């Protein structure tokens, strides 16, 4: 009887050991990509930027390995923009005003399409946060940074639209800092 109990306990113990190691391995693999800066290889060189500028702080961002691509996203965190641009509001209408930036390294084909682009387009929108709906003025800016061979696109909301040139300059500054080759 005692032997059977002991056998049962041993079985439970080994199952626990397997589950523990399995959990540990899964946890480690989930954490493996979360450290260090984000590296993007493009046709026009490599960009390396700190995690705090990742476009969205979610699992999906962290798990995607650096693809060789001419398209990537990053964001200027709202507090970072507020600190670096006088007048920029980090929070408006109860929402954090992160600036999401789309970067495209232009190929010859796309260069033809986006050459010298410097546009802005505004519309009335509302936040897609069911069941809340907060109206705001949302503008989209596109700019060809010819010296770098790239085009950028970003959105600003409400009062922050008046600082779009400052935001553009900050984006260009960060991209220049992050380009390593």
């Amino acid at each position, binding site marked *: 009887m005692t032997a059977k109990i002991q056998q049962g306990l041993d079985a439970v113990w080994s199952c626990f050991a397997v589950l523990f190691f*399995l959990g540990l*391995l899964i946890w480690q693999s989930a954490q493996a990509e979360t450290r260090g800066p984000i590296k993007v290889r493009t046709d026009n060189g490599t960009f390396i930027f700190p995690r705090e500028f990742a476009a969205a702080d*979610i699992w999906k961002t962290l798990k*995607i390995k650096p693809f060789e691509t001419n398209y990537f996203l990053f964001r200027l965190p709202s507090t970072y923009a507020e600190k670096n641009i006088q007048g920029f509001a980090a929070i408006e209408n109860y929402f954090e005003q992160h600036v999401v930036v789309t970067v495209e390294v232009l190929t010859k084909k796309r260069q033809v399409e986006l050459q010298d682009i410097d546009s802005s387009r505004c519309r009335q929108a509302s936040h897609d946060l069911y069941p809340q709906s907060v109206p705001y003025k949302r503008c989209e800016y596109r700019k060809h940074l010819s010296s770098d061979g790239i085009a950028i696109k970003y959105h600003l909301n409400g009062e922050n639209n008046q600082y779009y040139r400052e935001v553009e300059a900050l984006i260009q500054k960060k991209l220049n800092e992050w380009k390593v080759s």
Partner: protein
Amino acid sequence: MPQLRITNLYIGAIVSLILMVNLTACSPEPPEQALTKEASQSENAQPSNVQSVEVKAVELTVGGKVFAVPIEHLASLLPAAQFTPFSTVGTTSFLAYFSAAWLSAHVDGYQPILNKGFQGDTVYLAVGEQMKKDYARLHPVSMNLWYKREPYGNRVIMAEKEFNTGFYVIQPIPYQSRAGYEGEQWFLTETLPDETKPYPTGPRWQPMICSRKTGLIEGARVKTKCAIKAQIADDMFLQVDLSSENLQVRELLLSVLGKEIKSWVIEKDVNGDS
């Protein structure tokens, strides 16, 4: 008895080791390695210049057409695809991936991040004569909605178009929930259904199906997605999910996707002769 315990520990360690090896094998690979695997494993996939590091596209034969799919659009390279047993390439269809950055760069007004989630997605592409026949068939759900037949006998049409999307909303009553999806489903349409009139077929009346669900990883953030379908060529059809805010730019998005996907088709005999 202590010996038995030690043996069990050894078994545990061995099993753990096997699991670790499996996990390592399942982890996402760098594009170059995965590319070679894609080309060699799929019967339909024929590698183009696989020996070169500069490989930018993989040839897929689908529905009698040959597509040179740029590697950044291969859904099989997505981390999630590494863990699922389902192939992203079939004989008449395949999945292509378009990142939020790519879509944002090509489509004016497209928002790449909404509700802290990336708005990139896989596009389901169906190709070939059989698909053409399948897509020509009438859609039973749409017909039932139009004629107010069961299970949509109590459907409710919102009086005004939705501000964000510019569509009429048709709400099934009672609210529909699918198992595993916590959210309700509803339909969006440009024109109102009218059960007293014949079902329109030219063009066919087909509302978009939308659903709301809670993100698993993002801690209960609600996500809204609507499935839109389009014919991009005589025998090529695509389906993609869009969040409601990006529905405003759906026409431009479909045009951009259609143009891009059609540019992948290469004039080549399906047997491999150029």
